[in-house]
């Protein structure tokens, strides 16, 4: 399969965009926002066509065989780049933290997998920690609150980075959530296997969102966002929901997640 590249200078870092299956299928605008932010920060961005899913659903369901096959697919598609970046701590956390676990006993592949893991980053932490981005050119005239995804917080140690960039968005006021370290109830297959428990967790989270006084909810993982946007709709609440990349790239002018025409 061919790769289509955007034109940039040769010495700028060459980033392979791992767009993630949820963004690919559900919210392409997050993918475009990611490309925009990476290019603004001086990266050359390529989107390998041979990408689908990182394998996390298989891995978390105990299907180690398929998880490894999907990891190898990601390895083959992405190991040529300087960096692998994507708009999800959940998927990039899988690549960074769990791929090496999956191949711990595979002496032949492990060095390649470890090299891939080491250069794989979630978007916002990549901008702040690797590229030293301190501000973005964006405006968003809203009171927002930010939901930390569990994989961001605990697998990748991402907490200050999104707040740092949000602080530079003109007009944006951040109201912190109570219990920001508590899971929203998504949990991959958990949310469909145990809907009642998951639903209660999501309800508690959107109550906290409402209590924060914010009119907009942001997060860096589409899994959490679809869960929470779906619960907000079901409960008839009016909070709007966007991926943080859309706001940072000044591209949050379209319909929010789960928003209709009416």
């Amino acid at each position, binding site marked *: 399969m061919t790769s289509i590249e955007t034109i940039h200078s040769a010495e700028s870092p060459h980033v392979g965009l791992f767009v993630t299956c949820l963004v690919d299928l559900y919210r392409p605008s997050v993918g475009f926002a990611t490309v925009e932010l990476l290019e603004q920060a001086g990266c050359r961005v390529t989107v390998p066509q041979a990408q689908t899913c990182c394998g996390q*659903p298989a*891995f978390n*369901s105990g299907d*180690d065989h398929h998880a490894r096959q999907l990891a190898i697919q990601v390895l083959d598609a992405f190991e040529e780049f300087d960096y692998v970046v994507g708009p999800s701590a959940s998927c990039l956390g899988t690549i960074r933290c769990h791929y090496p676990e999956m191949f711990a006993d595979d002496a032949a592949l492990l060095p390649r997998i470890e090299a891939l893991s080491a250069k794989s980053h979630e978007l916002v932490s990549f901008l702040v920690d690797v590229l030293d981005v301190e501000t973005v050119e964006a405006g968003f005239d809203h009171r927002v609150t930010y939901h930390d995804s569990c994989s961001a917080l605990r697998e990748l140690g991402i907490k200050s980075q999104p707040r740092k960039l949000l602080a530079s968005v003109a007009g944006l006021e951040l109201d912190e959530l109570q219990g920001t370290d508590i*899971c929203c109830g998504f949990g991959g297959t958990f949310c469909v296997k145990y809907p*009642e428990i998951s639903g209660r967790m*999501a309800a508690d989270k959107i109550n906290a969102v409402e209590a924060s006084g914010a009119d907009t909810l942001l997060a860096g993982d589409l899994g959490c966002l679809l869960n929470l946007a779906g619960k907000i709709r079901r409960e008839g609440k009016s909070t709007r929901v966007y991926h943080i990349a859309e706001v940072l790239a000044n591209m949050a002018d379209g319909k929010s997640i789960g928003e209709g025409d009416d």
Partner: protein
Amino acid sequence: MQPNSRHFQVNAESALREPNLQSALKQLESGFVAGRQRCYDALPEFEALRDRAKEVLDHTLDNLDAYLLEYEARVLESGGLVHWASTPEEAREIVVRICRDAEARSVIRGKSMIGEEIGINDALEANGFEVTETDLGEYILQLAKEPPSHIVAPAIHKTKDEISDLFLEHHRGLGFTQRQTERSALVNEARQVLREKFLAADVGMTGANFLIAETGSNVIVTNEGNGDLSSTLPRVQIVTAAVDKVVPTLEDASLLLRLLGRSATGQEITAYTTFTTGPRRERDADGPGEYHVVLIDNHRSEMLGSELRPMLRCIRCGACMNHCPVYGRIGGHAYGWVYPGPMGSVLTPLMVGLDEAGHLPNACTLNGRCETVCPVKIPLPRLLRSLRSRQHLQRQNSSLARIALSLWSWVALRPRLYQLLTRPAMALLARLGSRSGGFRRMPLASGWTRVRDLPAPQGSTFQARWQQQQRDRK
């Protein structure tokens, strides 16, 4: 206790609808979680202690056989006896035999989870012994005929009102005819009832928080002092303990004690920390004439030899369940056996079988909050995931989920096919959902739409739009 983990889903759903339980569980965050955090913030070396504790326990587990034998030798030297039990049945037989040989009539118990694990109360009662739990929480549950719902705060699910009723019902015959409603009055009433039991008991049973190899001592922590009375007043003492309770030295036990209270209840140290070694010596003022230790394996050797070995580091503080968002919504009974929450979701399948407890490793979002607060750094999400792998290999997971996920993986491994299928599917879904913005019902996704809407996708896919954009640029 008969396991009831098979019905986790139903148990959990009814727990979600119990208002008393829900209000009790709300206090976990403001009580235990906040308390632990205060202790954590006040102790600069907390993280260093966690690392050191992990090291000590890993070293102990690597040499478990040697430390157990050392412990046994010290107990024998101090005049006590050590009994080895591979199974709960063996452990029960040993305890019943000791009680029978001592011609005992009544047994008092300090709170111990291993006692629940081996089902000792039922066995003793079936053999004609009178058994009394002396930990207040356990005593309440004994009256209510309920199992504990938390390993540290066993009666956390009971309200004060329920306890008032229980005490009136059971203590009326003992002369307590007034229904007490004040906390202190309830505690006082229980204390008076239990005092008589302590004085009359022939056998005192306790668990062990730690067993110390270098001295042959047993350590228990309590906040009520009932452990001290259980181990000093009766003429026979029986300690039941799992084989993973042993630590090499007193120094190691003090290290772990610094973590235990802080992680469990947010206490720097519990009100009582009791070290007992052997039976009463000639010059001792009190203490039992006989001192027995029953060391119980119950599948722990299998864990030692598997990838689940880190679970044996557990010091039973309960921090994992206090911080677990699932436990925090459904409480302990839904898990259906002795150990609830994250640690229970690892232990229960190993002790009662994955067949019975297959839900437990799956009823977890893998959010990892438990691992970050575990004082001995047990990688609970990793262990739960590895139980899922066992289920997958043994084909014990639900067939529908299995087929759906295999199908997804099969498609995802074929990027061209993936794109071919997803483009029209997402376009269709977007068209159907664009006006309203989402779906209240969706065939094949009822698990999702039962409690929340499914937001509509934007239409087409990123890949399709990106490739189109690149072509347009050329």
